[in-house]
């Protein structure tokens, strides 16, 4: 597969066009649904875990391997730790879920998204960050777990004066 130049691709997606470019990529495999991702049940236990590793284990029951096929888009310096725009897009086939973790938050797991067949493996959301931290995106694809990590700097918010 030809390497994708992500930034123009993302820009196209921002404009609401160009998504067709991705659609061939996401839906190969049979999408072996992992127990957690396929169920409608809220993963209470995973959200209660403190560390990123424990949260990933609680959510998926195994650990993830880093993948170049995940593009994690996050600012270098968050303008405000309360609202940090974070997005992920992947060219991995057979995606069934995408999750976001903020390692240094009191509870690392921030959000987990179920991606049924027919849904594009791309999510953008806004998360809170207590302090400078790694942000981890987990992609579950064809029953395997992949990850991408980026550090986002958070300066102390406000002055309380």
């Amino acid at each position, binding site marked *: 597969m030809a390497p994708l130049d992500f930034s123009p691709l993302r820009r196209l997606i*921002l404009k609401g066009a160009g998504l067709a470019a991705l659609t061939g990529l996401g839906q190969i495999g049979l999408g072996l649904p992992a127990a957690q991702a396929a169920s409608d049940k809220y993963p209470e236990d995973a959200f209660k875990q403190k560390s990123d590793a424990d949260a990933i284990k609680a959510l998926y029951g195994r650990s993830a391997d880093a993948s170049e096929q995940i593009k994690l888009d996050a*600012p*270098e*310096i*968050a*303008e*405000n730790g*309360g*609202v*940090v*725009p974070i*997005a992920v897009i992947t060219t991995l086939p057979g995606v069934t879920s995408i999750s976001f973790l903020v390692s240094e938050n009191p509870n690392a797991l921030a959000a987990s998204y179920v991606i049924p067949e027919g849904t594009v493996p791309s999510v*953008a959301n*806004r998360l809170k960050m207590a302090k400078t931290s790694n942000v981890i995106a987990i992609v579950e694809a064809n029953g395997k777990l992949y990850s991408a990590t980026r550090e986002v700097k958070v*300066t*102390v*918010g*406000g*002055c309380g*004066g």
Partner: protein
Amino acid sequence: MRACALFSSVLTALGFAVFVATALPPARAADAPDPAADAKAFRDYFVKKFPKVKLDDFVNGPYSMNEDMRKQWEEKEQFPPYEFALEAGKEMFATPFKNGKSYADCFANGGIGVRQNYPMFDEKEGKVVTLELALNRCREANGEKPYSYVKDEMASLTAYMAFTSRGKPFDIKIPADPRALEAYQEGKRYFYTRRGQLNFSCATCHVQSPGERIRAETLAPALGILNAMPIYRSEWSGMGTISRRFTTCNSQIRGVPLEPQSDEYRNLEYYLSYVSNGLPISGPGARP
């Protein structure tokens, strides 16, 4: 121990004040105020200081001068956080008062597309009337209670009125009335006067250091700073009006804020808006 810290901070502030006072050139004769020349000098200063920023882009505050922040902002603007306030404001604006009249009856052109004309100098009253003040006066004239000036309903209403005026250049007039010129001059004096224990003026941050970070914040340039009002500030986790911006700026420099819509703040808004004449209204805005 706390006493020592305070003591030394007093001395620091004092030392600073003495330094400034003694470094002053001898008082020159008070030149007659010339608002048009002021506005030109003001604009020229920012254009020269930030040659890469397009004039109209100054209304986007810190986002005009920081690429990483601008990207986060563009992301936010896809579904802006002021959306709820804007919709609420639109609904409030359209809802008649108990007496059957509405906000539209209080404003030229039914209040649509007029934000760029505020504040205006009211020659009857002899004072500056801001949009926030005009809205509350409209309410009171129609038997309704005034709103808090700093957030919530007032922010929603001004958000909607700004939205209907987006793109229209600030068009603040100083009528041929000595009181209007005096109000302008007083606003200018307030803007440049150091206050608070930190001994900062508005200009210290927003003229001398825009684009720089102070604590966690990137400072906005004074040019165009009111064009984006009201704003959703992530730091506030909500909307705030011009009144909120002024009062929080004062307390951040450890000054006791004046009451919203006091003469000083009205004059300050008059001055700051006037020197941004020609720059487009961009409110409501989103800020860190």
